[in-house]
């Protein structure tokens, strides 16, 4: 059923039902009192299908999915590591699953303890004082972290500090989050190896700077060796340092952002801590801060009494609520399970193995692919397309050709520092056999580019849909059945 391409609305037959309701023994419960102005005028357009049709439809669709569970997924900057199934078992435990956010804290001690323990573990891993687990995802964490930064300056009466420095190699979410937080973005240049240019940074550091957003290792997978100097300069200028946790994986249990001088950071549980990623996740973006910023963390907070009891607290200096209740709790359970499964000893192996895997691929492929930055990378690295530029085969073509060979494509055309960027992150969870298979295929594609370039340029050749018309998709997206029907007419 690889070719299955129906929408559930196309299966619909008027009057077909997948349910039977018992006779209503409860009356209308006052539903008839709803004023006409609040009622819809036409019935909702819902698919009318049987249970079996629903099951087949979604089972067929699910088999078309590509995920970490079906194949290698070297999507750079996304840390697509394996999501251990024990995480799901733990998150499905009914005692946690059936709690309600409004129930009395006295009756939810176990859940609050898990929240409290996880934030403690993350604080230890990050070298920061405390975490909030409330933000729903990475970008939400960035926004929350920047709101903490803003709140800190405002509470000191320092209203001039409205600018955030962001490297030109940063993830696109950094400047976007800064804008949403009401801060102005100032770009600082990168050196050829992607590191911040300290000389370019110095003149930007005045009394209007709220802080700087960085990730280390940087976007090119290289460690910022001047981070201690940068931290000193920014702090001396009165600014704070924000750490984008997107690239935390290689440092896990080895190097702590707090020790590098960072004041605020977010962590993507759906990257570094093995919770599902993509397709809505959902994610979780805990934010950690140094001790002088703890009081600004968003409400509600989970706290522990001297008698060992946990309670939910609302701090007066807090920047306010950024979520309903305590965030994506199910995701926290999975991350908690992951940390406990690995334990203190094994968590230290994550970074070195992720780093080894990335360097192994990099060194194995640099004869065919252009490596702009030499040297040992961390968990990921960037090629600037094929080495042989005469074939006319682009990074996009290579990415599409990989699909024919059963691999997910790497991140392409990011970072913007190069024209043909191809960003590869294998993660620590892949075996050497898988890495070797990928390396073989990448070599094969490079050979095809030289010998039969049209095959690569026209790829993918074997997937359910061939090369998509990205321009039309961006300009005229068809996002629902109504739009599809209108388009077909």
């Amino acid at each position: 059923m690889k070719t299955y391409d129906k929408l559930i609305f196309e299966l619909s037959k008027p009057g077909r039902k997948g349910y039977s309701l018992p006779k209503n023994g409860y009356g209308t419960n006052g539903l008839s009192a709803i004023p006409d102005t609040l009622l819809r005028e036409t019935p909702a357009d819902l698919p009318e299908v049987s249970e079996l049709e629903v099951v087949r439809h979604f089972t067929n669709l699910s088999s078309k999915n590509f995920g970490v569970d079906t194949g290698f997924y070297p999507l750079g900057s996304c840390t697509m590591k394996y999501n251990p199934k024990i995480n799901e078992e733990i998150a499905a435990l009914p005692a946690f699953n059936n709690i309600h956010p409004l129930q009395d804290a006295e009756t939810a001690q176990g859940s609050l303890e898990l929240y409290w323990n996880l934030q403690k573990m993350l604080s230890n891993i990050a070298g920061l004082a405390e975490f909030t687990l409330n933000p729903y995802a990475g970008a939400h964490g960035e926004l929350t972290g920047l709101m903490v930064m803003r709140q800190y300056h405002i509470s000191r009466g320092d209203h001039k500090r409205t600018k955030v420095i962001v490297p030109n190699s940063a993830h696109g979410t950094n400047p976007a989050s800064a804008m949403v937080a009401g801060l102005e973005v100032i770009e600082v240049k990168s050196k050829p190896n992607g590191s911040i240019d300290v000389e370019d940074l110095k003149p930007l550091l005045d009394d209007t700077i709220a802080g700087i957003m960085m990730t280390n290792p940087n976007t090119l997978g290289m460690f910022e060796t001047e981070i201690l100097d940068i931290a000193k300069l920014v702090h001396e200028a009165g600014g704070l340092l924000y750490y984008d946790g997107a690239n935390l994986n290689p440092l896990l249990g080895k190097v702590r952002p707090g020790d590098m001088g960072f004041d605020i950071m977010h962590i993507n549980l759906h990257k570094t801590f093995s919770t599902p990623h993509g397709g809505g996740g959902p994610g979780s973006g805990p934010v950690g801060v140094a001790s002088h910023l703890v009081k600004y963390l968003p409400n509600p907070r989970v706290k522990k009494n001297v008698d060992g009891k946990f309670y939910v607290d609302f701090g007066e200096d807090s920047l306010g609520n950024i979520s309903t209740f305590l965030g994506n709790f199910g995701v926290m359970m999975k991350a908690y399970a992951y940390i406990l499964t690995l334990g203190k000893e094994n968590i230290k192996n994550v970074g070195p193995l992720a780093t080894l895997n990335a360097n192994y691929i990099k060194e194995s492929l640099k004869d065919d692919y252009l490596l702009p930055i030499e040297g040992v990378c961390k968990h990921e690295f960037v090629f600037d397309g094929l080495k042989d530029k005469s074939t006319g085969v682009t990074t996009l073509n290579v990415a599409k050709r990989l699909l024919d060979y059963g691999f997910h494509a790497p991140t392409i055309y990011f970072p913007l520092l190069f024209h043909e960027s191809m960003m590869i992150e294998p993660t620590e969870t892949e075996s050497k056999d898988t890495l070797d298979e990928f390396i073989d295929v990448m070599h094969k594609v490079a050979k095809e580019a030289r010998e039969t370039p049209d095959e690569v340029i026209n790829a993918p050749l074997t997937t359910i849909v061939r090369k998509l018309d990205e321009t039309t998709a961006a300009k005229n997206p068809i996002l629902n059945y109504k739009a599809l029907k209108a388009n077909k007419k």
Partner: protein
Amino acid sequence: MSKILEDLRYADSHEWVKLEGDIATIGISDYAQHALGNIVYVDMPEVGDEVSQGEDFGAVESVKAASDLISPVSGEVIEINEALEDEPELVNQDPYSNWIMKVKVSDASEIDSLLDAAAYAKICEE
């Protein structure tokens, strides 16, 4: 090899300028449109807006990336190429006839700080 027209001036951020009297016509170079790939949206200023040399005046969005447009001159926007609102891909087809905005320049000497075709060609080669 991308096309570079001899009679235009260029910014190192890949915009071109043609100055006629005190009216500058501005677009992006062939090199820029090629590097961006299929363009899906051109974010243009409004007529009457003030632009400054070296400051952004809009953005070009392609299937690959969004890129700021940097004004090579200072002055007042007197016209924008409205055809690009519906057909941004015109920039891919011919980036030199499909200009983006026209500016009444406040300081015509600014043009001297821009690159000529030969100097711009060198930048594109790097």
